[in-house]
């Protein structure tokens, strides 16, 4: 079982060649690859071995796991989960207590250097990490031990990727992201609060298919899903371009489906796949339901000011040049190398309207 490829797994389950073709076409679509890449997906699936996966949950709310278990295309995504060997996940596994921890240790030993480590939740560092422990082991220690033998790490959700809610001001537990602790392994960030299930399975499918991690942006996110902003792919974007904005949640503009920018939509500064992949089996997504984007896949979205203030308004009243300089410095530190974000942060601090040209940079 451990040595079989995904193609073997599919064959064993009696999937026909047409079914395999469908699987590849759907996977290519999920990975946002051009349809012509389906043939390459098929070729790659015949070669890649079934990886072991260890999933560690730290300072989190289990929302990421909840999201994932509601992945909407059971037949395809269950195949992907059949194709991995999920050896430890303390919420989903039947074993508990010593047996559970033994399973983790056994899997780590057996696949040392080769397993994929998935982490959700942030890691508290204050007071020796005493604020979150599993089986008496601090999250910090467990992460370090498990990361040492991992081929790659996937930070699932905004907490693991950027610290998330536990990291929000005043951060009482000293929570940090995985990437602030582990520096010597490839880390794929799949942020979102929670992440879109199809995006996580897409990342796993990519790893399974090509045996390598996908192309990442400068915040460690797979470009296939986080390469464009919500705003770029928003079906309400044409209204933004026409200057048609809802001013309140119940005015005529809101009823006509106009742009929610002035109601605080963070779409222009948020990179995620909600606008195309949508939620709940493609039923809808926040903007389609009439509410602006909260920006949940971006670092420090909890500390970004009101969810209901337009991006062009400052986070807090700016009293002097020193405060503005601090605000710019802090914002720039978060968004290293992202000139467009810095422009927007500067615009926020100086209380200027961000122009369309700024947003499109």
């Amino acid at each position: 079982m451990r040595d079989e490829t995904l193609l073997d797994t599919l064959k064993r389950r009696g999937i026909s060649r047409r079914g395999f073709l469908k699987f590849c076409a759907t996977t290519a679509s999920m990975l946002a690859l051009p349809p012509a890449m389906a043939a390459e997906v098929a070729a790659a699936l015949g070669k890649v071995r079934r990886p072991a996966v260890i999933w560690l949950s730290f300072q989190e709310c289990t929302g990421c796991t909840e999201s994932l278990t509601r992945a909407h295309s059971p037949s395809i995504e269950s195949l992907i989960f059949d194709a991995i060997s999920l050896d430890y996940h303390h919420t989903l596994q039947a074993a508990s207590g010593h047996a559970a921890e033994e399973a983790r240790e056994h899997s780590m030993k057996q696949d040392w250097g080769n397993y994929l480590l998935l982490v959700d939740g942030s890691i508290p560092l204050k007071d020796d990490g005493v604020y979150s422990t599993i089986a008496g082991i601090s999250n910090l220690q467990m992460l370090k031990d498990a990361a040492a033998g991992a081929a790659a790490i996937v930070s699932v959700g905004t907490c693991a990727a950027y610290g998330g809610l536990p990291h929000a001001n005043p951060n009482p537990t000293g929570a940090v992201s995985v990437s602030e602790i582990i520096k010597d392994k490839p880390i794929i960030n799949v942020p979102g609060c929670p992440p879109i299930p199809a995006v996580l399975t897409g990342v796993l499918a990519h790893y399974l298919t090509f045996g390598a991690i996908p192309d990442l942006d400068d915040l460690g996110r797979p470009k296939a899903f986080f390469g464009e902003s919500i705003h770029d792919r928003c079906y309400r974007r044409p209204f933004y371009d026409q200057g048609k904005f809802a001013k309140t949640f119940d005015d005529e503009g809101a009823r006509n489906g106009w742009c929610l920018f002035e109601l605080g939509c963070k779409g222009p500064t948020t990179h995620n796949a909600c606008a195309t992949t949508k939620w709940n089996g493609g039923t809808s997504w926040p903007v389609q339901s009439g509410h602006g984007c909260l920006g949940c896949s971006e670092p420090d979205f909890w500390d970004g000011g009101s969810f209901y203030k337009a991006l062009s308004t400052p986070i807090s009243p700016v009293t002097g040049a020193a405060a503005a300089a601090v605000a710019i410095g802090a914002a720039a530190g978060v968004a290293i190398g992202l000139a467009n974000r810095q422009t927007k942060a500067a615009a926020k601090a100086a209380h200027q309207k961000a122009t369309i040209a700024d947003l499109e940079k």
Partner: protein
Amino acid sequence: MNGLNGIGVKVVHVGGNGNAHAVLREIEARLQLLVEKGEEGSIDLSGLPLMPEDYDLLEETLGEGEVVAEVHSLGPTRIHETGIPGVWWVTHYNSDDEVLAEFIEVAWCPEILLTPEDDVKDGLEALRARLFELNPKSPLGGAPSLDL
């Protein structure tokens, strides 16, 4: 998705966002490639955000053709040729009838409808095995073997 039907939501559509026109132009370009070079192609409909009106416009513009087919593997896949010959609408569903992926294929025949070569070879063996069961005495199942 059953629960959604129980929620009293009044859906008001306010018009498409214009992306259907882009898809239609891409179909035109691909169809020209098929005619001139015999090159087949496919468009993933999840690539551009389309509103219900955009789907309506796509469907109305392309129309209905002569062929409707369904493949049952990993849930149904429904295929129909549009009113523009060579332009096929292929929708993959899962076993719960939810859409997994949707493509416009510009091709002589969508790949998923063609019988895979290996399946044909397996089929020949399966047929011979069945003929052998009918008449175990002959190595080829008793039927006169034809040199094709």
